[in-house]
């Protein structure tokens, strides 16, 4: 098992030897073990198809493991346990998932209805829902969009609405699937700023991403996935320094180019922060 926190505090998730298969032949997660303590900001790094999104869906109680076990807040997270209304409502209230594709998450006719959907299903009093929706829309600066249909929103606006739709529940754990995918730089910056500042960093945030630019800012722990297994873990700075690991897991790529003298060479290539870094050249 890979412990993801140095603090001996309460575990939010405890994942042990989890196997999840799409079909009998295709394994999405292969004997994954990790534990996440309260307040951890964890980045799950991996290329497309490495199993990051599947793990998030397992942690959100949407998929269930073929073998192994997952505990959430000390309770087993199983299909049977979520049959119980009280337990399911408590879990949904505490854990929220922001999907990679906001169009999946914005299924209501207007932004207001979208943000109100979660509290309505959890049977909050309607007056409380109205005031909380207003407060959440103000927080994410999207009050002017409240009557708008999702198909008339930009990508950045959709992402804000998707965030608002889960933040209204004031969850303890936020699961983010590729939060900066397909966003323009300004919207990416909004998402990163939000993740840095959300609740003063006191809550648990698990972010699946292959955007190495944001990892150091949004996470204080990281795991690297490859083909459904954890191949490395550690502090983001340490993982990001390991060029050979990143290249092996397709998080950075070999870059080939021609010099003015006609010589061709290749080297590992990545963009980090505002700098364009080149690792050792390999002529």
């Amino acid at each position: 098992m890979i412990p993801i926190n140095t603090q001996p505090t309460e575990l939010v998730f405890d994942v042990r030897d989890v196997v999840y298969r799409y079909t009998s032949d295709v394994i999405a997660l292969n004997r994954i073990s990790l534990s996440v303590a309260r307040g951890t900001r964890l980045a799950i790094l991996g290329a497309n198809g490495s199993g990051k999104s599947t793990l998030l869906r397992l942690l959100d109680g949407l998929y269930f493991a073929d073998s192994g076990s997952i505990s959430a807040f000390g309770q087993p997270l199983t299909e049977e346990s979520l049959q119980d209304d009280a337990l399911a409502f408590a879990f949904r209230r505490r854990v929220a998932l922001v999907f990679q594709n906001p169009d999946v998450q914005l299924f209501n006719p207007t932004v207001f209805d979208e943000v109100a959907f979660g509290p309505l299903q959890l049977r909050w009093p309607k007056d409380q829902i109205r005031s909380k929706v207003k407060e959440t829309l103000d927080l994410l600066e999207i009050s002017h969009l409240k009557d708008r249909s999702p198909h008339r929103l930009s990508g950045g606006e959709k992402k804000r609405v998707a965030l608002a739709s889960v933040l209204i529940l004031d969850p303890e754990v936020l699961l983010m699937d590729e939060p900066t995918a397909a966003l323009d730089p300004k919207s990416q910056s909004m998402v990163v700023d939000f993740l840095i500042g959300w609740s003063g960093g006191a809550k648990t945030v698990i972010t699946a991403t292959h955007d190495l630019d944001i990892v150091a800012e949004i996470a204080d722990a990281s795991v690297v996935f490859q083909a459904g297994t954890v191949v490395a873990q550690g502090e983001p700075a340490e993982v990001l320094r390991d060029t050979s690991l990143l290249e092996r897991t397709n998080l950075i790529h070999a870059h080939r180019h021609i010099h003015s003298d006609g010589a061709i060479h290749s080297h590992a290539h990545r963009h980090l922060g505002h700098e364009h870094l080149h690792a050792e050249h390999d002529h």
Partner: protein
Amino acid sequence: MAISSQTAAPRRKRRASFVERTIAGLAEAMERALYAEELAKANGLLQQLDPRVKVVGLLALLVAAALARNILVILGVFALALALALLSRVPLRTLATRVWLGALLFTGTLALPAIFITPGQVLARVPLLGWPISAQGLSAAAYLITRVETAATLSMLLILCTPWTHVLKALRVLRVPVVFVVILGMTYRYIFLMLQTAQDMFESRQSRMVGTLDAADRRRLAGASVGVLLSKSIQLSGDVYLAMMSRGYRGEVYTLDDFTLRGRDWAALAGFLGTAALAFWLGQ
């Protein structure tokens, strides 16, 4: 190489291809929806009323017109619909192209045989064919057409002067089950995503195509596109279901209805119901 304008053959306007026509059709569908959304926000009479009042009031007028046995009463309700349209800033041209023409063609086709086959006083005969045109047949056709035109105009006024989301919520006043309203709302929301996806698919195809497709290829393209869209919509529906579950959906849907009836809504409702009752009484 320069081409002399004198030697170049005059260019015929090329007939739009199947793909181009499909793209244009999809774009037009989205434009129409956007136009309707903008019109629903205009500062007109109907736009300012509570959606439930509009649903109940316009439905009452529609029923009165449908039950009337006096064509003048039906025409009176039609004139009222026209007045409401003008006061609600709905251009008559929009009604003419979107409602009247289509309703006339459709209903006219249905009503045409009645003119000739309804027995009664023969007013004239069709030249060459000799078919009789009866007064009763003309009357039946006129009733059918005016009733349909009036009903379609009233329905279109509701749609054009009310955001679609409010129309759906207002249906609850007619005891439409909440799950039905929610499904219609989701359909409305995702139809645009599917329209956009379809448009992207056809534009992608168009960008790689030279010349025109023959009939068999057009059928294959249409079939393949339908298949891909179906597959995408199935994938999407699965993901949307997960997103609903993630936020507490447990098989029953709860909605927030935020409408409040004000003084002018009550006055409008009384006006609609009073007019409908009068039309019903005069129409008998």
